[in-house]
């Protein structure tokens, strides 16, 4: 497998890691846009999803939203931003497109997580005289945690993988390594870029699983 050897040598060449189009710079861009998008999406989706779940309202909306997320063609959204005045706004187009993509799974999982807490437990807590806030903090939130973490993990992995599409419209991130290799018929570089993004996605998944284990103790 010549490609494997060539990819390895691309990855182990120091020059490929430094400079404006080097791995470190692209990785920093990638982490910046993915992280910002994920944080913003959480800030919007989690409070809303948890609140709707607590009230038990808006269920159809929350559940159908997860399919909407998959239906969003991120490339089309990015392209629309890039032909609008937003194109001069630095990382904003990529971050906004990724936020739109990440909100649905987060919102759906938060809603379903709270909603699926055993009604008998909720009734018992109410019977013990817990207020709405106490019920939410002491019962619903802890029991919804596994579902919340599943939503967070799938959103994070998808955001990290999808952020590469930004390169197709000339925005930054690890995808640029792939498109640059693609344009110069440099297969080892394309493979190297793909491996780096996949590793990053798996690393993010592993970190979130680890964080979840720590929280559970």
């Amino acid at each position, binding site marked *: 497998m010549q490609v494997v050897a060539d990819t390895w040598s691309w990855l182990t060449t120091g020059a490929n890691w430094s400079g404006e189009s080097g791995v470190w710079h692209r990785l920093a861009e990638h982490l910046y846009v993915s992280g910002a998008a994920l944080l913003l999406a959480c800030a919007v989706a989690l409070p809303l999803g948890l609140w709707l779940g607590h009230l038990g309202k808006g269920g159809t909306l929350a559940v159908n939203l997860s399919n909407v997320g998959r*239906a969003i063609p991120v490339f*089309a959204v990015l392209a629309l931003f890039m032909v609008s005045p937003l194109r001069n706004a630095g990382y904003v187009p990529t971050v906004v497109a990724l936020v739109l993509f990440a909100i649905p799974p987060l919102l759906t999982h938060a809603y379903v997580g709270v909603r699926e807490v055993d009604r008998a437990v909720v009734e018992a807590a109410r019977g013990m005289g817990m207020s709405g806030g106490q019920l939410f903090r002491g019962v619903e939130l802890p029991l919804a945690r596994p579902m919340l973490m599943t939503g967070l993990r799938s959103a994070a992995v998808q955001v990290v993988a999808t952020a590469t599409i930004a390169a197709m*419209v000339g925005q930054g991130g690890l*995808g640029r390594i792939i498109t640059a290799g*693609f344009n110069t018929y440099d297969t080892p570089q394309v493979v190297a870029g793909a491996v780096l993004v*996949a590793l990053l996605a798996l690393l993010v998944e592993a970190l979130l699983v680890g964080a979840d284990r720590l929280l559970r103790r």
Partner: protein
Amino acid sequence: MAGTNCLVTNDWICGEYLRTRSQELADATVQHVGITAASVLLGLAVAFPLALLVRARPRLAGAVLGLTTLLYTIPSLALFSLLLPLLGLSSALVVTGLVLYSLTILVRGVLAGLAAVPAETKEAARGMGYGSGRLLWEVELPLALPALMAGIRMATVSTIALTTVGSIVGRGGLGNLIEDALPTFFKAQVLTASVLCVLLAVTADLLLLGLQRLLTPWSRIRAARAGGA
């Protein structure tokens, strides 16, 4: 000539664009639909035996589900580029990539559907002398249809969205029009192709929902009875 002006002024919505490029739009839509349909059908053809295998040998479940989930972490852009040396600049390349993505959703959908069939129903069918083949086709699959169709709908909708990324190799259906329009900031083309892409996803979802209703008449009868009682 107000109509021509919107092409000159680069408006977002332009009737003149729709009129003069309708053939181009139709061709791109046909390519988009073709790639999506081929990907989902092939995905189903691969996912179905995989799910049956996992069900027969639960020990393989971890490996199969892990592998299909791992495929999902490879960015679409990278996957299409990686398959390039193997398949060249072709629709087969985009279809292969999309099939690999759809597996995550479809295998889980088939498994969830089969798992939802009540054990008593299967016992009853076995008691009536159904063999495992007949049990699968005549009892389990019809009962698994709602969950299975949910998986197919999800896979179809996400495949329609992902097909646009195939424009990296020039086989992205409506994505090609978007990519072509980017360097010149041709707003009408980007907007029209994007809207068509979303409309395509909504239409496909509704058609599949209709198909599911046709295939599971008993669920409507049950709903009607519950409503009437």
